[in-house]
C-alpha cells in the first residue's frame, strides 16, 4: 500500500516465492502507469508499464494488474530473487503534448531472504 513520509512500507519474501506489491493512485484521469525499481544510490529503472485500456500486462517474471474501478495497481514478481531487493515505485503519467510528468507513489521496500 501507499504511505507518505520517511518510513516506507516493506515487504519481506523468501527467495523463490512470488511477491505482490500494491499501489493506489489518485487521479482517475491518468491513463498511463509505470512500475519502477530503484536500487540504493541509483535512479529509477523502468520495469513495466500499462495503459488504462488494459487491465493486465505481463513481462518477464513480472505482471502488472490495473483496477480502474478502485484506482489500484499491483506488481507481481514471480520466483523472487535476491537481485529483486530494491524499492519499488508505482507512478502515473499525466500531461499533454507539451510534456508529461510522472507522479511517483511513496514506494515499497522489498527484501528478499535467501
Amino acid at each position, binding site marked *: 500500500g501507499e504511505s507518505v513520509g*520517511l518510513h516506507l512500507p516493506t515487504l519481506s519474501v523468501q527467495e523463490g516465492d512470488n511477491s505482490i506489491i500494491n499501489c493506489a493512485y489518485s487521479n482517475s484521469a491518468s491513463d498511463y502507469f509505470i512500475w519502477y525499481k530503484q536500487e540504493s544510490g541509483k*535512479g529509477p529503472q523502468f520495469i513495466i508499464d500499462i495503459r488504462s485500456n488494459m487491465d493486465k500486462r505481463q513481462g518477464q517474471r513480472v505482471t502488472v494488474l490495473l483496477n480502474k474501478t478502485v484506482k489500484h495497481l499491483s506488481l507481481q514478481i514471480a520466483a523472487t530473487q535476491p537481485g529483486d531487493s530494491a524499492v519499488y515505485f508505482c507512478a502515473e*503519467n499525466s500531461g499533454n503534448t507539451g*510534456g*508529461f510528468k510522472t507522479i511517483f507513489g511513496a514506494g515499497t521496500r522489498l527484501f528478499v531472504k535467501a
Partner: protein
Amino acid sequence: EPEVTQTPSHQVTQMGQEVILRCVPISNHLYFYWYRQILGQKVEFLVSFYNNEISEKSEIFDDQFSVERPDGSNFTLKIRSTKLEDSAMYFCASTIAAGVDPYFGPGTRLTVT
C-alpha cells in the same frame, strides 16, 4: 544501450551558493525532465522542458530554480541560492515522445551545508 548521464555524481555546497547540475539526455530525445528525491522519500517532479521552454513545473520549482538547454546535448538545472532543504538526489530524465516512460539518469547527490 543509450543512457542519460549526469554530472557531478555528488556536489557539496554551502547555503546561499549557486549550483548547476548537468545532464546529457539521450541524443534523439525531445522531452527533458528534472526530479528530486529527498533521502528516504519519494521521487518528486520538478519541471518538464520541451521545444526550448518549460512545459510544466511543480510548486517546488520556484524562482530559485531555472533550467536551460545551452546547446544540443546538455540540459542543466540551476539553483540560485541553495537552502539546506535543497539537499536531495536530483534526477534528470528524457523521453523521445510525450506520454512514454522517461529514462532516468543516475542522479546527482546535492548536499547543502
